């Protein structure tokens, strides 16, 4: 094992105020059981899970309450024992209504006897391990929520030679992954070993940004015991270096083609949180029922890193951290760059909720946007080498054909363009609605072409 430093290789990127000191030194504490848990069936990319329980059912902690509905889907489990109060819809952080199971905890927190460690951990082969990951309902915990078992089973014509474990946490304010690396480096290391066993990838790279020295130290210590081509890559801090494609470029120098996936260049990226969850699932048979969430904000009395059950309403997290100060203005699920502004505190924690950020009136100024002045700063800042200036003007004029030819679908909505725009144009929102429209058109075209065959 060796530690290497890597400068930022990718184009664009920005250096926002990271504000991580607010919660960085707060050890993870478990949040007490809430009075009500609303567990969404759509916490992952792909088809929502279909509920397997009905109103009035008694459930145990770890019991399956939603089974995957389709190839790209993930299982959902009861985060505690209790009674199912309702099976209906809840509004998720994205504002969409998703099917959900509402559970009233009985306070016993009784574990489902089916959740137990395997008889012989070493004897398990790759297929069994992937099965265990799927059964545990593990999804990418960095934010996208792609079902992990699907990611871990690449098609046979793709060989993966490098596994990158992502501990960059480039999003400002958030410290959930940082605390996990500092406090549970062993679990991450063990999880990494499981993933390596599944993939058989020759090389392993663990990438951490250089603004997290304690995490680097902790990971260095545990990784010393790993054998083979193993490197701890210390990245120069820059947003959005934790994004999959940017990280692959910074760590390996390989560029994922437009519209392609990391496996097209022989790489697979997993978040540190996912690695720890995999270890928990494989070694203890525990499905994904809780996660570490950073609750932070300069105006918040007591910013914390909390271990919360999936389905806990955000209002519980806030009251644990000192409640909403009177000058609060905006509540964001996730970080300030890519997070989603919330319309209600009743929204619940999901498998991908890495943070909850509260901004005061002073911090969340509402700008008025003006016409593009063609300064080109957004083009310089875009880590995907797109032209947000052109794109936003195409989309404003609803010229979706041009937007498609300017590769709007490659946009990952990182927000760098809007961050630097002196005209304060709502670039990300243009991209977001434009992407939805263009994707719908592409889909329609494909369906038509298939019909014509």
């Amino acid at each position: 094992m060796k530690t290497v430093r890597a400068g930022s290789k990718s184009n664009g990127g920005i250096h926002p105020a990271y504000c991580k000191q607010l919660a960085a030194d707060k050890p993870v504490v478990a949040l007490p059981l809430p009075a009500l848990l609303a567990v969404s069936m759509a916490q992952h990319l792909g088809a929502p899970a279909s509920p397997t329980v009905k109103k009035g059912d008694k459930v145990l902690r770890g019991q399956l309450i939603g089974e995957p509905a389709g190839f790209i889907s993930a299982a959902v489990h009861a985060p505690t024992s209790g009674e199912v109060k309702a099976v209906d819809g809840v509004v998720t952080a994205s504002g969409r209504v998703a099917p959900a199971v509402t559970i009233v905890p009985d306070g016993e927190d009784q574990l489902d006897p089916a959740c137990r460690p395997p008889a012989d951990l070493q004897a398990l082969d790759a297929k069994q391990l992937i099965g265990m990951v799927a059964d545990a309902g593990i999804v990418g915990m960095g934010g996208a929520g792609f079902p992990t078992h699907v990611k871990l089973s690449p098609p046979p014509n793709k060989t993966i030679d490098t596994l990158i474990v992502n501990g960059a946490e480039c999003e400002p304010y958030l410290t959930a992954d940082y605390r996990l690396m500092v406090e549970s480096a062993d679990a991450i290391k063990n999880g990494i070993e499981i993933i390596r066993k599944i993939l058989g990838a020759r090389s392993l790279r663990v990438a951490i940004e250089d603004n997290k020295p304690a995490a680097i130290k902790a990971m260095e210590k545990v990784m010393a015991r790993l054998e083979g081509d193993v490197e701890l890559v210390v990245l120069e801090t820059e947003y959005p270096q934790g994004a999959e494609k940017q990280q692959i470029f910074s760590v390996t120098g390989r560029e994922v083609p437009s519209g392609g996936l990391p496996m097209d260049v022989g790489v697979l990226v997993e978040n540190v949180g996912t690695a720890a969850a995999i270890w928990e699932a494989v070694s203890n048979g525990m499905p994904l029922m809780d996660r570490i969430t950073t609750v932070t904000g300069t105006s918040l009395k007591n910013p914390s890193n909390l271990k919360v059950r999936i389905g806990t309403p955000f209002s519980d997290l806030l009251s644990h951290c000192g409640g909403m100060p009177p000058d609060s203005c905006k509540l964001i699920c996730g970080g300030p760059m890519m997070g989603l502004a919330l319309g209600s505190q009743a929204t619940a924690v999901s498998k991908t909720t890495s943070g909850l950020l509260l901004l005061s009136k002073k911090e969340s100024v509402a700008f008025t946007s003006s016409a593009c002045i063609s300064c080109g700063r957004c083009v310089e800042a875009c880590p995907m080498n797109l032209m947000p200036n052109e794109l936003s003007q195409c989309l404003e004029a609803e010229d979706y054909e041009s937007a498609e030819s300017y590769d709007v679908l490659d946009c990952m909505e990182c927000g760098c363009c809007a961050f630097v725009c002196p005209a304060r144009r709502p670039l990300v929102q243009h991209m977001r609605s434009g992407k939805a429209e263009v994707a719908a058109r592409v889909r329609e075209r494909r369906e038509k072409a298939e019909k014509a065959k």
Partner: protein
Amino acid sequence: MTGVDPVTVGLAVVGGTGIACGAALAVAARFLSVKEDPRIEKATEILPGANCGGCGYAGCADYAKAIVLNGVAINLCSAAGEEVLALLSEMMGVSATAAEKRVAIVLCGGDTEKAVRRFKYNGIADCRAAHAVGGGDKGCSYGCLGYGSCSRVCPTGAIEITANQLAVVHPALCIACGACVKVCPRSLIKIVPVSRTIHVLCRSKDKGPIVKKLCKVGCIGCTVCAKNCDEGAIVMEGTLAVVDYARPLTTDVVIEKCPTNCIVRTETEVSDKS
């Protein structure tokens, strides 16, 4: 070598090629021409030229072609009046009664005075963009957002966004092309026969107590209207009363009895504009 002046040669070659090609084109035009039915052009001229696509064809010229070549019905154009229909029927030698004029209606009555907003939206003034931000700023997740996406796509300017952020259709201007129906992210717009003037202006599937909290003029699912009209004219879909436009509904009792005033009679301001 003295000889022919290169300029003359150039002129001769280019000019000769030109004449030869011209002759070839003249011959080709004579023998290879495709005869287009002159009625297509005439029908295109007769049609209103709004190119709204409401008939189901890609613009008026395409519809004209379909009428002449494929014998498609001549009364599909919702923007056409009696005069247009008479001209078309004269030309094609078919008679057709004008289909009843249809108009769009926005099935929501909750403007900013009557319906609550959950948060302050400060993004792009477009309903589709607003709908994607936390599900829209309107408390009711089914109601009209009022950012005017429908109004902007309307080819005749028939949709007005009121001062209180609600889309309202002016039936006299509406040609029922359906462009607004496609663009509304909340599927609130319906095309109905113009003679139908009694509507339930609510599409909320929320239960009564929730509706009451969010909007003063929402349907709470009390079923009074369904019980006080002709069988099946208003049906309950869960906790929402829905007018079945295929059945007659004339009684004003439903308007009077609706406790939240979400059943209304729209103005009949349609004049025959053709």
